[in-house]
């Protein structure tokens, strides 16, 4: 194993290093985040006023579709895979990911997949215009030719996800340092292990769904065509069997991040560690058996509606356990409010809010009113943006000093937080009112009575977009000019293996595995015992 990174561009193209690959994932996801954000800005600019101002309706629907696809598959998922790549080997005391070359393959598929996907916008007939859920027959019978490019790009994206997840599972199951038992693993590792399992289980189902589309479009099959004996609703069942676990794939690693950050700035161990693990597993299990709550208005038998309603409500129980534990961790803690903590607290509050609107949507009878309105849009942006994106932002602020050995500007971080927090609520809170008043989603125009709240929402959206540029500036500034630090711990209350390696983290860590002492999770004794690779651990161990 070479001692340092290779020189030049080749370092990034041919790397097998988990930290390099983590960085690549994070950079790619931020680029996609800005692209998807630009699509959102186009949407909000058009919706600022009723009537058609800037773009054609055909282009508008392509924008809503691509915004969803790029944000879900290009921004949020790769962001958390990037965090997993960086942090899991550090957290469990592994020299790298289990299968380093496959790790690089998983990443490099993504730029190709998204190049294909985004290129459809420039093709004859335009890009995907059927919503990110690509329901048949919109995505089959009535789709532009470019749908075929969409299908195959989803195929290779799925292959990337499956390989990435298998890598994470193999790493967690096989690469833990001696003494790092499952119930001593940091929660971020736990949530990712379960997420990876969900991904391996449902990405093939997505591949099945797009394959059925491909066959219906080009080879005369009738999966989604009632004339041949199939059913368009079959598409929704297959899609949501993937799609519902998918939303937990997005949010579970976010739970993990917040479960790392809150104890640090509360200077207390996480409350209810084992119940957090079991709650995560319970959520993952339930995510497989609730998919049709996305389809309450499609015409299911009443027994189906009732079952999916009650099963969905059950998810509130393990989720409630988690929220309770985060709050109880903070209770009587010695709290400080650095930027990662602010984002995490906002996460807890706003995610809970989004969870409650989810509970409203789970009531089948009420959902008939809410279905496909802006209420749904508001709901899932509260859990996707204030949930996953806030958590991802918190993670970047939290671990950035460890990654690059430089401290970010705390004031700028706090300003960015408050702008993002306020702008987010200005954007999405009014969408609840719009939805309850009956404004449907995915339309490029609306009735005059919806004007005021749409204007408010659009103003908020541009502010929120601005906050992201501030984040980008803060990150670049930190990496280039940030104040140098060399404290391995970075944060006073931080506990875990990743805080015992030097800052910035060396290119190769834990070349020889550390040995984890007996002791309670999160407690001070939970430190390494033998430290063959780095002298600096020794001091920490002696002190402990």
């Amino acid at each position, binding site marked *: 194993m070479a001692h340092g990174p290779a020189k030049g561009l080749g370092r990034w193209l041919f790397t097998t290093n988990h930290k390099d690959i983590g960085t690549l994932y994070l950079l790619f996801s931020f680029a996609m985040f800005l692209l998807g954000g630009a699509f959102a800005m186009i949407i909000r600019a058009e919706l600022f006023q009723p009537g058609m101002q800037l773009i054609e309706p055909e282009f508008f629907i392509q924008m809503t579709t691509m915004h969803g696809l790029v944000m879900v598959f290009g921004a949020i998922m790769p962001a958390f895979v990037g965090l997993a790549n960086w942090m899991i080997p550090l957290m469990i005391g592994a020299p790298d990911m289990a299968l380093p070359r496959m790790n690089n393959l998983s990443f490099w598929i993504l730029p190709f997949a998204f190049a294909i996907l985004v290129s459809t916008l420039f093709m004859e007939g335009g890009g995907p215009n059927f919503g990110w859920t690509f329901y048949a027959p919109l995505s089959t019978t009535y789709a532009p030719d470019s749908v075929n490019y969409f299908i195959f790009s989803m195929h290779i994206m799925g292959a990337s996800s499956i390989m990435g997840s298998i890598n994470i599972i193999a790493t967690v199951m096989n690469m*833990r340092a001696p003494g790092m038992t499952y119930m001593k693993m940091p929660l971020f590792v736990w949530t990712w292990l379960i997420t990876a399992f969900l991904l391996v289980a449902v990405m093939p189902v997505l591949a099945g769904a797009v394959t059925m589309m491909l066959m219906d479009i*080009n080879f005369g099959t009738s999966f989604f065509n009632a004339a041949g004996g199939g059913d368009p609703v079959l598409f929704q069942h297959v899609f949501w069997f993937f799609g519902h676990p998918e939303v937990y794939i997005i949010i579970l690693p976010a739970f993990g991040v917040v479960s790392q950050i809150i104890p640090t700035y509360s200077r207390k161990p996480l409350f209810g560690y084992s119940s957090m693990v079991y709650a995560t597993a319970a959520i993952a299990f339930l995510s497989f058996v609730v998919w049709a709550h996305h389809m309450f208005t499609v015409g299911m038998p009443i027994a189906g509606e009732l079952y999916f309603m009650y099963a969905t409500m059950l998810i509130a129980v393990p989720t409630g356990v988690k929220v309770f534990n985060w709050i109880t961790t903070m209770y009587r803690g010695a709290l400080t409010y650095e930027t990662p903590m602010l984002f995490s607290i906002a996460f807890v509050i706003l995610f809970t809010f989004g969870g409650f609107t989810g509970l409203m949507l789970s009531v089948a009878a009420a959902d008939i009113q809410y279905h496909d309105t802006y209420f749904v849009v508001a709901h899932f942006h509260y859990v996707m943006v204030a949930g996953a994106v806030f958590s991802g932002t918190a993670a970047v602020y939290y671990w950035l000093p460890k990654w690059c050995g430089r401290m970010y500007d705390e004031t700028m971080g706090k300003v960015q937080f408050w702008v993002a927090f306020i702008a987010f609520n200005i954007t999405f809170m009014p969408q609840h009112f719009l939805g309850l008043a009956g404004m449907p989603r995915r339309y490029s125009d609306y009735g005059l009575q919806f004007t005021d709240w749409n204007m408010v929402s659009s103003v908020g959206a541009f502010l929120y977009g601005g906050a992201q540029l501030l984040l980008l500036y803060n990150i670049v500034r930190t990496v280039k000019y940030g104040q140098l630090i060399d404290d391995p711990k970075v944060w006073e209350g931080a506990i875990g293996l990743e805080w015992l390696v030097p800052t910035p983290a060396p290119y190769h860590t834990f070349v020889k595995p550390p040995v984890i002492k007996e002791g309670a999770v999160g407690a001070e004794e939970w430190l390494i015992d033998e430290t063959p690779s780095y002298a600096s651990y020794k001091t920490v161990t002696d002190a402990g």
Partner: protein
Amino acid sequence: MASEGTYYVPEQSKLPIFCAAAMGVMAFGAASWVIEGGDPFIFLCGLALMTVVMWQWWSLVIDENMQGLADEQLKHSYVLGMLWFIFSEVMFFAAFFGALFYVRFFVNAWIGGEASFGMFDNTPTDAAVANNELLWTGYERQWPVMETPDQAVNGESALFKGPDRSMSLPLWEYPVSQWLSKLYTLLPWLPLWNTVILLTSSFTVHVAHNGLKAGDRAVFLRYLGITVMLGFLFLGLQVAEYYEAYAHYGLTLESGIYGTTFFMLTGFHGAHVTLGTVMLLIQLVRGMKGQFSQDDQFGFEAASWYWHFVDVVWLGLFLVVYIFG
């Protein structure tokens, strides 16, 4: 778990990014190929690049193993990787099996104006009745779907025409009392032979494995060779069955939902058998080169797990597509 600290982390490699590029070119090429007027040139370029990359990659891994770089822990990573990959394949098939069940037990009833699973009573819902009366008038619930809803409404001008014959167990055409005397109808029924072939091949691959573990190279090579031949035999019979379906049964991809589910399920299974056969063939060549030893044989083991997996999928297909199809 680690104790030695010898886990092999490979140096930089050009293979992954070329593999990703090959996948990108294949995806782009496949899409431009299926669109009307497209040709397979770009796809084939991607495929060629992919073949080269995969050859190089696996050669490298084998080479590293021969050099003794792969310790027990790394081998366990390979084991986990293969097992979870097979799990993902199981889920891929689950999507198609699920589609079959949903269409057969729910959609088919609703288009026919009947209740699906009557948990409490068997009264069809208003929606199902309206569906049948207004949209698909005259369609009767049936499986296999020999007359599509399209045919029920549009007759001869229908786009989706059901098949003349299905692939189901021939005995269903006779009352149970005659089954014994009609057993001979099973003789030309290819799925039965294919089941026998695949089950036998699962057994022979196991014998080969035992031979390898016992250090008996002759048994290993002989039984692995038999397994590969059985794999090719299965594929040959599958081709014969497809020919029969297209030429004599009027059963095609276009013949409604029965043809759709039949060809997609058996077709994807056949594709996986092809892959498994190639995997085993490569292991056979490697075995002849003497690359396996009594306690180092992961490449062969992984291929044999995959083979058992396609065997289990076939048993599922045999039950739900053929016997109760």
